[in-house]
């Protein structure tokens, strides 16, 4: 059986290496303010700062009563209200930016936006470009199927994602 042991030992090597890499990091963050944490620190930056939100008009979820070129841009609608509420909770000031979904998702991926709203559902095709929140509400669509509604956040900014999700899940929306 000694050969088998050797095999196990050989196979265990990568784990050991990986562990050796990870553990010091874990040690530094042993008292993490956030767990999960943001690789790019989005949540930390937003708190007490600016929350940059992209918005694509999609009534009744988001509306741009003054058009996309208005300044200051003041979107209304269900999701605009939710965003405002979340910004208040984290002590941030919302900076809106309007655009097409493609523009907004591009900005989100480039790190120029922290959040994109626009009546997205869980079936959104943008799922590989953005982190989709838990559905904060489910309403029947025109087709009669239930449509869970979500917002889009930057990929991998998990502390921000979790904070947003916590806020959204705490709200009694729609119904």
């Amino acid at each position, binding site marked *: *059986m000694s*050969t088998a042991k050797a*095999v*196990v030992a050989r196979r265990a090597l990568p*784990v050991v290496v990986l562990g050796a890499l990870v553990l010091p990091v874990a040690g530094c963050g042993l008292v993490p303010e956030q767990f*999960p944490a943001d690789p790019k620190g989005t949540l930390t930056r937003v708190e007490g700062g600016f929350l940059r939100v992209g918005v694509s008009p999609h009534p009744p979820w988001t509306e741009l009563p003054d058009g996309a070129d208005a300044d200051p841009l003041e979107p209304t609608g269900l999701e605009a209200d939710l965003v405002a509420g979340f910004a208040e909770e984290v002590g941030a000031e919302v900076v809106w930016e309007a655009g097409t979904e493609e523009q907004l998702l591009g900005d989100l991926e480039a790190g120029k936006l922290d959040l994109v709203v626009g009546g997205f559902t869980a079936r959104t095709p943008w799922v590989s470009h953005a982190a989709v929140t*838990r559905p904060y509400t489910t309403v029947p669509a025109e087709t009669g199927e239930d449509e869970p509604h979500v917002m889009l956040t930057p990929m*991998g900014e998990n502390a921000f994602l979790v904070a947003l999700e916590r806020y959204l899940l705490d709200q009694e929306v729609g119904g």
Partner: protein
Amino acid sequence: MSAAARGAGRERTRFGHTELPEEQERALRRAVRLAWLTIGFLLTAVVLLFLVMGSSQAMKAAWAEDLLSFIPPFAFLVALRLTRKPPSPNHPYGHHRSVGVGHLVAGTSLVIMGTFLVWDSATGLLKQEHPPIGLMEVAGHQVWSGWLMIGALAYTLVPPVLLGRAKMPLAEQLHDRVLYADADMNKADWMTAAGGIVGILGVGLGLWWADAAAALFISGSILRDGVGNVRTAVTALMDARASTVDGSEVHPLVGRVDERLRALPWVQEAGSRVRDEGHVFHVEAFVVPVAGIPPELTQLREARQAVCDLDWKVQDVVVAPTEGLPRDLLPGLPEPDDTTDVADRRRARGRREPLAEGQRRRLTPTRAVRPGRGGDRHRTMDGQGRTGRSTGTGRRWWEGPVTARVVVVGGGYGGCAVAQALDDVADVVLVEPRDGFVHTVGALRAAVDPTWEDRVFRPYDTLLRRGHVLHDWVRSVSPGVVLLSTTQRLEADFVVLATGTSYAFPAKTGDLTRVGAVAALARMRDDLARCDSVLVEGGGPVGLELAGELAHAFEDLRVVVVEEAPEVLPGEEVEPGLRASVVRQLTDLGVELVTGSPLVAPPPYEVGRYGPFVAETAAGVQVDAQMWFRCHGARPLTDYLDDDLVALRRCDRTLRVTRHLSLVGEDRLFAVGDITDMPEDKRATVAQVHAAVVTQNIRDLLAGHAPTAAHRPARRRMVLALGPGAGAAQVEQPDGSVVLLGAAETVRLKEDDVLRTDLVSGAGPLVAAVPGQARRTAPSGQARQAGQPTSPSA
């Protein structure tokens, strides 16, 4: 529970036609149980991981691996089901390969999936994809999904390891590669889970790359498993030499098959191809019979059975007798070879063989005999065999000369001496039905003294260095051809006849094995102790020596010698003084001599066995006795001579020989010892002198010139030992006069004979065998026993 496990209770489970032993059957039942257990566990693990997977790469890889883990246990169960099918006309080898197929399928799917996952994780890493892991609601609580993933992975951490450890020994017992691969993967499975956990934790700490790195690690291990399994499976399907279940080394059975076959007495060399059919082996074994004699069908069957008895895995066995190991079918035999001639090939191998580990033991025999090579014989007859001039067989000059084949018939003093003397220049086969050399000089002493047994019976195993001893009877001899008891045929360049004389127990024992002969002597000694009176029929030297031994060894025993001639030791060549001395000494010992009339009929019992009787001579003398011995009527054994040679046999059954000791008119057929018609005493020492003459003449013929050694009849000599310490002798002097010797000189001569004639192991061990008694008993004067058993009627 599967059909396999259920069926096991009723009758022995089979793999094809291979019946599983108890131990393997238990292992199989357990393996089936574990396979189902694994499937059950994997079902729960796959469902659980799927529920919490989210968008983590590491989770995806771990999930894929668990999904793939279904294949080996399923492959195992399916293969098992197929394997159990008996062989059919369409599948004469059975369905064992299903294991290999299952193995290959499992391995291939691992490779494909592993490759895909490696690609997926690597691109994720390169594109710096940040995995989003958000919240989940479990029973109303909001929990970060990462924790759920870690929990699910932790669930898959331990059970596979336990399953793998349980399966590993079963895989070895069943020799099941699929099970082995499964167990091996299971055992390594904890690393998948651990890697996944590390990855998720890393993501939680904000290290976006940890997830992809963990996924890369997991998929890498899948890929490696796949490659390893495919390699082993393909190797097995390509009929690679059978290896252990982990594929790390040659399976020990491979060597044991050859070893077992070589251990058979009729097998000179064996080689085999063993391939792993999956669970069981398929063996094609080639055996080279000793001296090229085709084996009997029963011997082949026994050989096959012997191999089958080695292990349950080897049941599909073919044993093929061949002239030489087929090099092209058995790659890896030492020395690749480009000659086409089989015999040359064999000889070439013989030269190189010492280099080959494991075959060394059989080195000598391989060169011994090349049957059926008439061409060879003629070449040597021309005296050119040793020059290597002949090019007809494709033999190359550097391969050295062809050695001649000499068949010696009979393993007595003369036969052994010839065989031993020619061992280094020729391929010698000694044909002798006994399993050991019988040192007849002294056999009568062994009849009354058990400590002599070791001196009298000697195994043949050290006699020849290169040649062989065949335990068989000779049916017929004609020049160049010796036919053995069955249908076997030996061809020879030279034949030497040394069959000696038949003689009744105990001077020559009737049993062919040492054990039998010793037992017969022991039984006779026991019977002798019960006897009051013993009858010895025949008053020649052998009868008188036996009488002397008996009278000396059993003081109260009445010994009666019956001789039909008017006096004992009949014959003109016996000096009257010797006769008078012997008669006087025997009378002193209390031996009764009844002369002048033969027995009317032989006693109704076997010689040397207890049985009271009353024997009557033609003259009307009645002898009461409980045992008798026949000490006359020994005759040369020459019945086997071919009809064409019958003119060479005299009416006393001796053979007409020239002074070169070849049979008259036959240059290459020699005779030595008692069967020659040389006018001299029949003695072991004489046989040895004959042997020296024949050896020289054969060497001369081999060297390409005429025989040079001629035999002159030995000077007459009669040495009679009458128990230890008594006896008389007459010795012819060079001038023709005859000298009589007393007891003391006789004792010395006897000692001399015993030592000089013990050719099998030399004088040293002989004396050492009976250290305390050597001096006392050996001189005792068995004297003439030596070659003499035959001479009573002389």
